[in-house]
């Protein structure tokens, strides 16, 4: 019984860690907009925790470059399982317009495994919330496969 309550709770309490990997701040503003009274993601138990050790979902915006790919990997490794990664915006997904720049590695998935890609330049808050919901479904699936 308690096991099923834990399973149910996972989807009801996704704590989010937001990492700006080299974004123009457009997507970051949209991520933070989700927390405002207009979108109020706390309705779904979503909290922006700012600490990888407490987080369930990692939101990454912007391109990865050679300087910050280690930071991204480090943050990902510090998150306890089960966890999900969501790449936000054109840059996070593929590198966007910066994909050919000499210092850019590319999208987030070049460094860490990504569960959900949220497109847009910048991504809309509705799309980000939707991405988190899909991400939760994915990590519920991952947990079941692991069991």
């Amino acid at each position: 019984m308690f096991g099923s309550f834990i399973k149910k709770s996972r989807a009801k309490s996704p704590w989010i860690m937001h990492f700006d990997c080299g974004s123009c701040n457009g997507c970051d503003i949209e991520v933070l907009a989700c927390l405002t009274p207009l979108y109020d993601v706390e309705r779904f138990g979503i909290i922006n925790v700012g600490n990888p050790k407490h987080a369930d979902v990692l939101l990454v915006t912007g391109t990865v470059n050679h300087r910050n790919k280690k930071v991204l990997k480090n943050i990902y490794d510090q998150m306890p399982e089960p966890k999900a990664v969501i790449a936000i915006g054109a840059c996070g997904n593929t590198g966007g317009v910066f994909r050919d720049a000499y210092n850019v590695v590319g999208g987030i998935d070049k460094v860490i495994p990504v569960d959900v890609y949220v497109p847009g330049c910048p991504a809309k808050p509705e799309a980000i919330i939707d991405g988190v919901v899909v991400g939760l479904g994915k990590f519920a699936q991952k947990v079941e496969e692991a069991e």
Partner: protein
Amino acid sequence: MDTLILVIIGLVAGPVIGGLVAGLDRRVTAWFQSRQGPPIMQSFYDVAKLLGKEKMVVNQWQILCAWVYLIAAAVSVGLFFAQGDLLVIFFVQAVGAVFLVMGAMSAKSPFSQVGAQRELMQILAYEPVLILVFVGIYLVTGSFSISAVWELEQPLLAKMPLLYLALGYALTIKLRKSPFDFSTSHHGHQELVKGVLTEYSGPYLALVEIAHWYETVLILGLCALFWSTNVFWMAALLLGTYALEILVDNTMARMTWRWMLKRVWLLGMGMSVVNLIWLYAG
């Protein structure tokens, strides 16, 4: 036998009440900010989720410290429900509070370290106030036992109004609310991340959270003792106090530990001492 039943009621009711209070608190806070807010049960979902996460620790000390903090908080609530001795309750909860700090100190993270130092300052501020409240109860009832309070004809509040105000400081600090929320901020994306709680994660963070519920119930229980003669007035007093607590939390900025020490020691302890002199002389 009755005592044992009371202890069990305390141990079970503690987290249930504490979790509901925390959920209600977030709901009312959301209402203040014209948001809808999370469901009332949210705190239980959070803790259940944390219990199901991977165990990740910086060192073995954290496991011990989280458990001791939880056990001390639970025992102090159990003792409170069993009508135990106020001084024993005080020391047991103080041990728990110190272990929380030790767990945070055992990790090298600067956020955890600074948070631990600030938590120590908070302990330094509220513990004397708590002990002065207990001394006040002793002066009124002639005993440190909680059962002596229930035998009073007149509520404690009539004799210890200033001590109740001082207890309000201790309550605010223990609930980790603004303006005294500098050891662990409610929102983690701020200057100190989560302060003392930064390095606790997964199931151990859940233990700390449950212990926090127990502590909330303990301090609210102490507030309830101030109107022990009538259940309705007791409920009204608790509701009023907690509503004021939420209002203060939402209207105040976070202050520094120096500001806290000045306010709590000068005003809080000043009021307590005046009240104690009045009780002693009167």
